[in-house]
């Protein structure tokens, strides 16, 4: 879905969002108050500049608007794949964004992620996947890594990976798999402003993704293994 149409549907009472290239941010009005919005368009490759800018926006919200909920609308094909971004330490910029989001969370900001188009790899890891709850539109695409690259790294033939991706939720593209794994909490259908209101009103239960993944049958071992590790450590 086009980001501008999406914003109109999410905030029928109005919004002030500034677009600049692949990036946008601003504020939307809801019956529950103002919501800060940070996002990207056109399946943006997230390079050092974009990660840096998003992190700066998060810090500014924490500094100037204590407690204001943050809605992440990140459309990304993943981290920018380039020699230059690696040279500058793109992983450090992504980690910085992750730290800023965690600071916002621990400072009392609700963080809601909505995958409205595409979410892939590092661009997803360091943004929407770090929200309290990540939601998606039904036709969104979520992917851990593109299959040709995965084939090169794992040395498993591409044909075999394509075959496996039909049955394994762990690396099959599409949003249903992420729903089954618990990484996406639910799909937003119908009145999107209503879905947003519900998400804002949802209790903060901490990170329950392992539990959801187990209940939905897409991530069967993570919860029990994590519990055993925790028990052993305790």
């Amino acid at each position, binding site marked *: 879905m086009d980001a501008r149409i999406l914003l109109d549907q999410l905030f029928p009472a109005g919004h002030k969002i500034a677009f600049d290239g692949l990036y946008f941010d601003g504020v939307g009005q809801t019956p529950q108050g103002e919501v800060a919005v940070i996002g990207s368009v056109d399946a943006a490759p997230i390079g*050092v*500049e974009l990660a*840096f800018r998003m*992190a*700066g926006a998060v*810090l500014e919200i*924490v*500094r100037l608007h204590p407690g204001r909920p943050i809605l992440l609308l990140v459309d990304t094909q993943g*981290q920018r*794949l*380039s*020699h*230059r*971004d*690696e*040279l*500058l*330490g*793109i*992983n*450090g*910029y*992504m*980690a*910085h964004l*992750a*730290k*800023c989001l*965690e*600071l916002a969370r621990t*400072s009392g900001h609700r963080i809601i992620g909505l995958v409205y188009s595409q979410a892939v790899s*590092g661009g997803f*890891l*360091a943004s929407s996947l770090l929200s309290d709850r990540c939601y998606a539109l039904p036709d969104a695409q979520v992917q851990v*890594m*593109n299959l*040709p*690259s995965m084939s*090169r*790294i794992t040395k498993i033939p591409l044909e075999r990976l394509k075959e496996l991706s039909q049955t394994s939720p762990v690396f099959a593209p599409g949003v249903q798999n992420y729903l089954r794994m618990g990484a996406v909490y639910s799909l937003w259908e119908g009145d999107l402003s209503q879905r947003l209101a519900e998400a804002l009103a949802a209790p903060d239960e901490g990170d329950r993704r392992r539990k959801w993944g187990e209940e939905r049958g897409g991530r069967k071992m993570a919860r029990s293994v994590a519990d055993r590790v925790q028990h052993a450590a305790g």
Partner: protein
Amino acid sequence: MGIASRLCDAIIMSEEGRLGLSGPEVIETTCGVEEFDSRDRALVWRTVGGKHRYLLGEADALVADDIDAFRKQALAFLDAKPDLSLEGLSKEHAFLGDRIGRFGDCRDALDIWRRLGVDKPENLPLLEAEEFCAAVADKRVL
């Protein structure tokens, strides 16, 4: 894992260690060999290897490729406590913004090293860890 590593309290690397986000092989597969030649070992090491990471301030220590050296350095970092407050992360933000401003137009690690004031940047890969640390003590970004 490059993101997870940078969420740690401290990072120790050897020159041969590689720290980044997308591996050179992935970039080459997706964007072509002109973008990143994964078989050019010298290029790979000076882009994502320990010496460059240490110079940029992405790694906190550079040690020889030796388990005792890693162990000694790890013990020294046991009490490292990063500042994750608003103030601390604002500082980190300024630090990372400064890097884009200073080196954003560099095409190669050698350009960055030269800009840091390193005399003969092409010699850095030849130095042993200790010599290297002494040579760049007043050059690395902090």
